[in-house]
C-alpha cells in the first residue's frame, strides 16, 4: 500500500467527514433512546445504527475498504462463527424442553 502524499491529503478530508457522521449518529442513537420505542424496535434501530457506525470505522479508519482478500476471508469466517454462536445460543433458549426460572 503505497499512499502518496496527495492520497493522504484526500484521506484526511474523508477522516473528518467520517468523524462528523459518527458524531451525528451518536447523537441520533441517544435521541432515539429518549423516544422509548417498544423494545423490539429499539433493539433493531440501535443495533442498526451501531452497525453503520461500526462499518464506517472498519471500512475507513481501518482501511477495510481496500484490504486484501485474505483479510476479507478471515473476517467473513470470524463473522460466520460469531453468528453461529449467537444464533444457536439464542435458539437453544427458546427451544428448551423445560421451565426456566424456578426457584
Amino acid at each position: 500500500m503505497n499512499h502518496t502524499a496527495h492520497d493522504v491529503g484526500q484521506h484526511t478530508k474523508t477522516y473528518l467527514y467520517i468523524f462528523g457522521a459518527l458524531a451525528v449518529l451518536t447523537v441520533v442513537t441517544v435521541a432515539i433512546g429518549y423516544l422509548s420505542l417498544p423494545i423490539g424496535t429499539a433493539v433493531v434501530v440501535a443495533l442498526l445504527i451501531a452497525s453503520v457506525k461500526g462499518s464506517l470505522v472498519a471500512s475507513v479508519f481501518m482501511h477495510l475498504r481496500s484490504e486484501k482478500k485474505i483479510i476479507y476471508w478471515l473476517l467473513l469466517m470470524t463473522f460466520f462463527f460469531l453468528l453461529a454462536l449467537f444464533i444457536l445460543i439464542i435458539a437453544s433458549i427458546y427451544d428448551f424442553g423445560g421451565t426456566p426460572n424456578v426457584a
Partner: protein
Amino acid sequence: MSTHGDHQEMSFWRKYIFSQDHKIIGLQYGITALFFLLAGFTMMMMMRWQLAYPGQPVPFIGGLLGEDNAPGGIILPEFYNQLGAMHGTIMIFLGVVPLAVGAFGNYIVPLQIGAPDMAFPKINMTSYWAYFLGGVIMMVSFFVPGGAANSGWTSYPPLADIATMGQTFWLFGMIFLITSSLLGSINFITTIIQLRVKGLTWMRLPFFVWAQLVTAFLLLLAFPSLEAAGVLQLMDRLLGTSFFLPSGLVVSGQILEVSGGGSPLLWQHLFWFLAHPEVYVLILPAMGIVAEVIATNTRKPLWGYKSMVYSTIFLGFMSFVVWAHHMYLTGMGTAISAFFQTTTMIISIPSVVILTALLLSLWGGSIRFTTPMLFALGFLPMFAIGGLTGLPLGLAAADIPLHDTYYVIGHFHYIVAPGTIFALFAGIYHWYPKITGRQLSETLGKVHFWGSMVFMNGIFMPMFVQGLAGVSRRLWDAGEQYAHASGVLWTNEWMSISAWLLFVFQLPFIYNILRSLRGPKVESDNPWQATTLEWATTSPPGHGNFATPPVVYRGAYEYSVPGHEADFLPQNQPEKG
C-alpha cells in the same frame, strides 16, 4: 533492520532459555509437554489403583500423598476428583496440545515451508512462557487449601463456582494457557501464509502443514469463548456475581446469598464452543503426522491428497457448529437437538474421508515397518474405534443411556491415547534424527509399540462394556455400590493392571531417548529418504534453518515417480534437463 549482535555469542540464557529460535522453543515445548504427559499418566495410575481396589491404601507412594488427600494412603473422594479433573486438564491442555502444536508445529512447520523461523519469534517465546506459567499455576494448585480443581476438566458451575480455591487457580492457569495458544496460533497462521518459500503453492504443502493451519484457526477462534467464560467464572468466584448461579440455590442446607439470575447452561455453551473444536485440535495434528509417516514409509504419494485437504478445512468449519452434542441431556428441545445431531453426523463424514484416504494410501505401497510406521499404522484402527463410537453418542436418543458413562470415556480415549498419543510417538520417532541428529533404536521402539498397543486396548476396550452396562464416569469407588454395575466391575482390575503395564512399556522409550544422547550421529540428513523440505537441511538444522532459501518444484509426496531412478523426488530438487 539492524543486524548487529546477531553474530555475537549469545548467552546461555538467550540461547536456550529465553530463546526466540523456533527450534529451541519447539524443544522446550516438547520436553515440558512430555513431563506433563508423565504427570497426567502418574495421576491416572493412582486413580486406577482406587478404581481397581476401592478404599485400599495405594502401595509405595500412598504415604506421600498427604494426610489431607489420602489418610493412610487411601485416596479420599475429594482427592480422587482433583486427580480426575487435573488428569483431564493436564493431558489435554498441558500435554497433547503443547506437544502436537507447540512442539511439532513449532519445530517442523517452518522447516517444511522453507522458512528461516516463525514470523514473530518474540511472540513465539512469549507463547511458550505463558504456557509454562499456566502449567506451574496448575501444578501449584495441588498445594493450596482444599487442593486442586475438583469439578472435572469441564468445570461445570454451580459446582465449580462453589468449589475450593484450586478452581480459581485452574481458571488463572487456563487464562495463561489460552493466551499462549492464541499467540501461538497467530504465529502459525501468519507463518504458513506468509513465509512459504518460492514454489510452495497451497496444493504442494505437506498435509501436516495443512493440519496445523486448520488447527491454528480452531485455536484462534474457539479459545476466546472459553476465555470469556473463564472471566465470568472468576467474577462469580471472586466478586460475588452470579453469571452461572440461578436464584434460590440451597447449598448444604444454607441459602446461597447471591443476586441470582444466572444460568448454569451459559457456561456449558461457552465451554463446549471451545471444547468441541478443541478435540479436533487434538486429532488434526495427529492425522498430519500420520500422513507424513505413511507417505514416507509406503514410498508412494498420499492417495486423495486434495480430498484430505478439503475434508480438513470442512472439518474445521463444521467443528464450530456441533458443540451442543455434549449437552443433549440438559433439557434440549427437538428442533435444536435435530440441528446438532445433523451437524454431528455430517462432521463424521470428513473424518471418514480422511481415514479412507490414509487407508487407500497403503495400497500399492512398498511398506517399511519402521517404528514410526508401526505407530502410524496402529493409529488407524485405534482412531477408527474411537471415531466410530462417537456415532451413537452423536444421536441424541442413543446418547441417553450412554451419556456420562464409561462409554464416553472409552470413546475419546481411543482417539486421544492409542490415537493421538500413538501419532505423537510416530512423530517423535520420525523426526528424532532430524531434531537431534541421532538415531533411536528400532528394537526398543518396536518393544515400545507392541507393549503400548496391547495394553492401551487392555485399558480402554472394557470401558465400552462398562459404559453399555450403564456405569457412570467419575465415580470414586468405580460404581461398587450399584447393582447394575456389579456384573462388569471385575474388568477394573484388568484395566488397571494394563495401565501400569502400559507404564512399564514406556520405559524402553525413555531409555531409548537417554541412550541416544550418547549414541552415534546419523550418517545422513535424510535417513528416511523423504521428500519434504525439513529433510533438505542439516540435522539438526542450524540457526536460520537453510543455508539458502530452498525453491520448491513439486508436490509434497513424489515417491516412486515412474521413470526416475531414486524412489523419491525431494520437493526442492530441480527438474533435470
